[in-house]
């Protein structure tokens, strides 16, 4: 009999998504033990269960075993199936939590994935849908995943406690990926952004735009920030204690290379309770201070730099790994802990190691040190796709 490739074993619920995604792609079963074993409320949380359910929906033939307390999970991956799927995400985490993993899996389905995700579009913890749309999609395009049906659409916006947002994501299927050489981040030519507001006055968004411009203008004059105000049904579920802060995400565009550089993904720090009901006069002040933190964190991201922003580092590295047996290179800012763990996981799942070189910034004032990551792809081919 064919030996079933031996399973990997991990402990703890951290990096659950990484492990399950890599397991699905590599075909190696994974066992995760001690999930919040010492917690008062042990076992998998709702959002994790929802994630596992989502995985089950998009795959065929996967085996998932969870013990009584939910502290141990065994996952034997099936083949990625895709097709038209609808999924209600947990409101505890943003849709970004689910979408990040879907972005890793979607190009390797049997049928092109067309998924409707419902839940929280923008929250404090996960990268918001707008950010992913602005950064992850162009990144995937670098790897040859492109086409008419490749889109991410925010149908409705939903904010944390209530949710009610809706996102449509469709992605074509590819058999092989192109190797990439993203070593020159280029210069930021213009800054584009989107300022959204939900269930507040549309003027709020404009104020955000103004305050953001005031800071960013010091760097570059070519700034355009769209405002996106959603009303009625498309503004998510009303919630009694809903705090619906307006948000904004900006992206800077490089000149020559079509690389989309940066996304300042940080949502607002939690606004004070009752902010919405506060008198009108204090509103703009609060808003102004909140908005001005945003460009700051933006410049922080620019300081970190690199060709891929920190949120999508792991996605980029994964797609490099899954490329043909060619050399891929990418220049990144400082590696996030999530990426570092992801690199380790890549080694255990695919036996792949990245060559890591630090590129100190020279005389140029380009922000922090950069890391050049190089790898040879494993020659991955989409085993799910049907040959006609």
């Amino acid at each position, binding site marked *: 009999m064919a030996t079933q490739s031996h399973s990997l074993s991990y402990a*703890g619920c951290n990096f659950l998504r990484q492990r399950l995604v890599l397991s699905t792609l590599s075909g190696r079963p994974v066992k995760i033990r001690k999930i919040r074993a010492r917690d008062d409320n042990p076992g998998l949380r709702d959002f994790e269960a929802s994630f596992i359910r989502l995985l089950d929906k998009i795959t065929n033939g996967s085996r998932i075993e969870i013990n009584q307390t939910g502290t141990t999970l065994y996952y034997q991956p099936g083949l990625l199936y895709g097709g038209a799927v609808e999924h209600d995400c947990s409101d505890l985490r943003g849709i970004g*939590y689910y979408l990040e993993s879907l972005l890793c899996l979607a190009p390797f389905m*049997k049928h092109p994935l067309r998924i409707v995700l419902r839940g929280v579009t923008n929250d404090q913890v996960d990268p918001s849908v707008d950010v992913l749309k602005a950064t992850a999609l162009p990144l995937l395009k670098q790897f040859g995943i492109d086409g008419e049906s490749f889109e991410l659409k925010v149908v409705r916006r939903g904010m944390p406690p209530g949710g009610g947002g809706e996102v449509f994501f469709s992605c074509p299927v590819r058999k092989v990926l192109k190797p990439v050489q993203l070593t020159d981040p280029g210069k930021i030519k213009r800054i584009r952004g989107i300022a959204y507001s939900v269930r507040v006055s549309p003027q709020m968004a404009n104020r955000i735009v103004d305050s953001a411009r005031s800071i960013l203008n010091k760097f*570059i004059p070519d700034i355009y920030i769209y405002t996106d105000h959603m009303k009625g049904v498309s503004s998510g579920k009303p919630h009694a204690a809903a705090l619906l802060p307006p948000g904004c995400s900006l992206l800077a565009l490089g000149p020559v290379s079509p690389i989309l550089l940066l996304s300042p993904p940080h949502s607002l720090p939690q606004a004070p309770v009752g902010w919405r009901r506060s008198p009108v006069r204090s509103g703009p002040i609060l808003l102004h201070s909140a908005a001005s933190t945003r460009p700051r964190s933006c410049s922080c991201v620019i300081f970190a730099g690199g060709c891929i922003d920190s949120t999508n580092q792991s996605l980029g590295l994964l797609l490099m790994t899954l490329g043909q047996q060619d050399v891929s290179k990418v220049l990144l800012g400082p590696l996030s802990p999530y990426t570092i763990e992801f*690199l380790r996981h890549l080694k255990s799942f695919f036996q792949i190691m990245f060559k890591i070189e630090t590129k100190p910034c020279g005389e*140029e004032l380009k922000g922090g040190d950069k890391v050049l990551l190089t790898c040879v792809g494993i020659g991955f081919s989409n085993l799910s796709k049907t040959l006609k």
Partner: protein
Amino acid sequence: METKDQKKHRKKNSGPKAEKKKKRHLQDLQIGDEEDARKRNPKAFAVQSAVRMARSFHRTQDLKTKKHHIPVVDRTPLEPPPIVVVVMGPPKVGKSTLIQCLIRNFTRQKLTEIRGPVTIVSGKKRRLTIIECGCDINMMIDLAKVADLVLMLIDASFGFEMETFEFLNICQVHGFPKIMGVLTHLDSFKYNKQLKKTKKRLKHRFWTEVYPGAKLFYLSGMVHGEYQNQEIHNLGRFITVMKFRPLTWQTSHPYILADRMEDLTNPEDIRKNIKCDRKVSLYGYLRGAHLKNKSQIHMPGVGDFAVSDVSFLPDPCALPEQQKKRCLNEKEKLVYAPLSGVGGVLYDKDAVYVDLGGSHGFQESDEVRPTHELVQSLISTHSTIDAKMASSRVTLFSDSKPLGSEDIDNQGQWMPKEEKQIDLETGRVRRKAIFGDEEDESGDSDDEDDEEMSEGDKLDNGSSADESEEEVDAEMTDKVYMAGKGVKRQRLEMDEDSEVDLPAFADSDDDLERSSEDEGEAEEADESGEEEDSTAGKRDILESSVVGDRSKPRLLQTDGLSDGLNLENPLTIKKATLTTSDSGHCTAEEAFASEDETEESSSLSTEGEDSENEEVIRKKFPKSSKVASGQRLGSENLIDETSDVEDLLKEEEDYKEENNYSTETSGALKWKEDLSRKAAEAFLRQQQATPNLRKLIYGTVTEDNEEEDGDTREELGGLFRVSQPSGECKHKLDSLDCSRFHVEAPHDWDLEEVMNSIRDCFVTGKWEDDKDAAKILAEDELYGDFEDLETGDVHKGKPGPDTQIEEVEEVKEEIDPSAEESAKKKHLDKKRKLKEMFDAEYDEGESTYFDDLKGEMHKQAQLNRAEFEDQDDEARVQYEGFRPGMYVRIEIESVPCEFVLNFDPHYPIILGGLGNSEGNVGYVQMRLKKHRWYKKILKSRDPIIFSVGWRRFQTIPLYYIEDHNGRQRLLKYTPQHMHCGATFWGPITPQGTGFLAVQSVSGIMPDFRIAATGVVLDLDKSIKIVKKLKLTGFPYKIFKNTSFIKGMFNSALEVAKFEGAVIRTVSGIRGQIKKALRAPEGAFRASFEDKLLMSDIVFMRTWYPVSIPAFYNPVTSLLKPVGEKDTWSGMRTTGQLRLARGVRLKPNKDSLYKPIVRQKKHFNSLHIPKALQKALPFKNKPKTQAKAGKIPKDRRRPAVIREPHERKVLALLDALSTVHSQKMKKAKEQRHLHNKEHFKVKQKEEEEKLKRQKDLRKKLFRIQGQKERRNQKSSLKGPEEPSK
């Protein structure tokens, strides 16, 4: 005489040279133009017909595009592995002879017995691995998958044989390597014409199979049992210059054709159980793609395995060094065939075996030039180790008798003894274990240090004390603890020092990292060792004291010993062996190397690096020694100190790691608080981009864990360590799973400087020199002419590029003399190059998509080559895996013992690497076609053997065909001349992979053995093959259009599932199931388009999913005993089983054929009504003959009654007539007789008459003749006769 022998020079009358001459001659005569027909007669070449021209153009374009292949990235390695040449043919065709001749041709050596692959160097850049392929279909299939070139031997005196065609088909399915036919036995033809005809016939048949124009080589005959030298030479030449196209499967998978096998199983295990699973190591050149350590492989004929270890070895059959010369010299003509016992060097993990064959043609020492030194040193090392070990023991035990007797049998206790000396001095029980291990580790980890340090250094260091020990102590006693802290602080500074002073350390990631890995291992070993040793307890102290006395004499051997210990460590401490990771091999080797150096170190010459290192060490040691002296009086033990120095170095490195580590473990460790105050911003930067980022990510595996857990690690067992590369798992185990990176120390972005730090990220910032527009502009202004010209051009509005170019050229000419400075020249060159590039591009017109793609691929290929070129193999292997062309050694565990016991070198051993999830099993769907030469059709659910990917396995396929609506309908048998689908449960293989199927791989079948071929289409975890199911029912109550139907279902639930389904009667009335009825179980109400009859049968057509039997049985032919390897038989088909058991199928009686008995049919007469008859015309009226009625009485004649008289008369007359007739009869007979006699007489007379006449005539003629003769004579004699 001599002048006659010399040939007279003949002028060439044809060929390029002659033509050239002729042309020149004509030109000299000024009639050169006449030569060119195009010029002479231009009208003849003018366009005659636009249509024809279009057509011819179209045709040339078609031909051109036909030649295009999809461009692929050229991934062939710079030093490619030997080309696999498979020599294939039916028995007794001359395969072995050909191989022998080829080897002799290339190497001038004669191999009498050839077993397994033979690798030879055939040219400056090419090596060949020649292997013979017999007629076992297993072998044919396996070798077709790895072959680069197939030499297909054909017995011309016999013609093609089945094996040839089978092999061709196998090749076709698995990618079609280059195939070259070789005709042998051509000397058996007597007549040249017959030979020619046969050649032509065979050639054309061969062409239809391979491709038109495929090379077919003729070996005309044998001389002294060998083929003719010239022909073999030519063949060899063909092979060496042959070009190959990459095959998809081969280039995407790593594979090895093993040329050596070793059993590494512990002999004790074999003794206990001869059938125990074995651990084997296999050697061979890696081919195809990069091989990763710990990946999965498949051995055709054996099964799937995980690689437990891979290491690369020096090339045993290396290509000659690149030199500029035309051919190889004798020394470089290597041959390597360990299975045949040929080939000088065998590399083992820790030893080298040199076969010093008597053959003078094969001079060992010179051939392996690149590895020569290594080999020699290794050989010497090997011997010295043994010597040392032996000597050390002797000396050890000679001093202490009781000790020797106790410990000789137990090596595990011998090791701690060494360390116990230290124990005595410090007076700590615990330390000895640590020290012992640390000493080992230091040997392990500090190989580089060992290498670099000279003996003198070590003596220097001798004054310094043992620090690492103290650190351990520090944890135990307070006083010492303080000191330990001091040490730590100092080290903090030293760390910085080292980073400044040791650029080599800081920059060369790989060396450092490797060493750190070793440390990681060492630490693990340390811990585990600790426990063991502590159990060893105090008992050994006494013994150690004895040893301590003679510490000085032992100094000479210290290094050897410590290294020896390192080698033995794995044996004694099991944990350590477990934890050694894949780099274990390297460390072992390094250990050897280092040992070597220390041996010769009496006259060791320190190199540049070494001296640097020394300095550093000297700098540090004063400090460390201070601390040490505070703690302890001058130590006598020099060994300890040297090792401690190493420990110190090591710990510094550790510390550095920890530094890096701290990026994540924020505030987890005590020392970090101190550090954070001191390091501040610089540290933050360091944190973000430390030179050892790699170590942070991949290295120092469980360091943190170990420090914190200590004993608890034991409880956790191996589970954690297997797959927990993260150090911080403790604190981060259950933290939030979020990809966002929160920067801990955000800068204050309101400050101007901080803001300036990213100023250059924007287009408004400063640009690089080569990109800065302003600068380029400024530079260009040096040569104002250019700018002026271009602007001038623009002004003139001359878009024509030609004029522009010309002008530029003119300008250049103008400038050239003026431009004297070298910088200017350089700039000019650059410009010219750019212009040339532009021109080239412009002239070619727009480059096609194909060209672009090709260029892209070329670029990628170059990048692939260049990326890791400058790194040493050790590091390279980690990043990209083992690259093809390397000679590797692969260790595999738990191989069935039969593989070793029944090892037959004639059978190829192939290790095929498996891609991701190719080791998994699932449903595979494929497009299949029964081979047109296979005699039978294939039946669903009959087990059949597939060859897909690397594997050969038996499985049970189901055949299906896809209906127009996408439904996959089960077939009982494969269709005859059509493709059909097939699904089986088996190993996942990528789509697009070809496969073939054979009914059985055992024995010899009379006919063509390949049953089916095809391609993998889809992989899935579920299948939807259906077969038709008809449910029938009968009406039991009929209303108008509604009927109640029973007998179709068994329960109301079943009916409910089929509500609304379409049903039909046999007579064709359509209807629909409405609702279940209560009364008879399973009955339902249905409505139809018409009223039914009670006799109608109602049926419903449904589709029933078929399940595929999950049967997958790899063909384990290599496990069969020698000589029976072609007898593997797996599951038998039901038909075979029935035949074997003599069980006859009990057929359904109704389906039996019976003799047809037809009853005689009686037709009634046709009755036509009278009225109709009357109406009919006469012609058509039935002609009924009226029966002859009775003759009326009046017509009837009366009977005559004669009178008695009359009666008498009548009687008399009667008598008379009888007499008369009798008389007449007699007379007639007599007359006849008479006539006969008369005739005879007459005949006789006639004969006599004729005879008489004849005689008469004879006489007459004779006389006449005589007369004539006489006349003649007289006439001849002339006038003389008359006178007579």
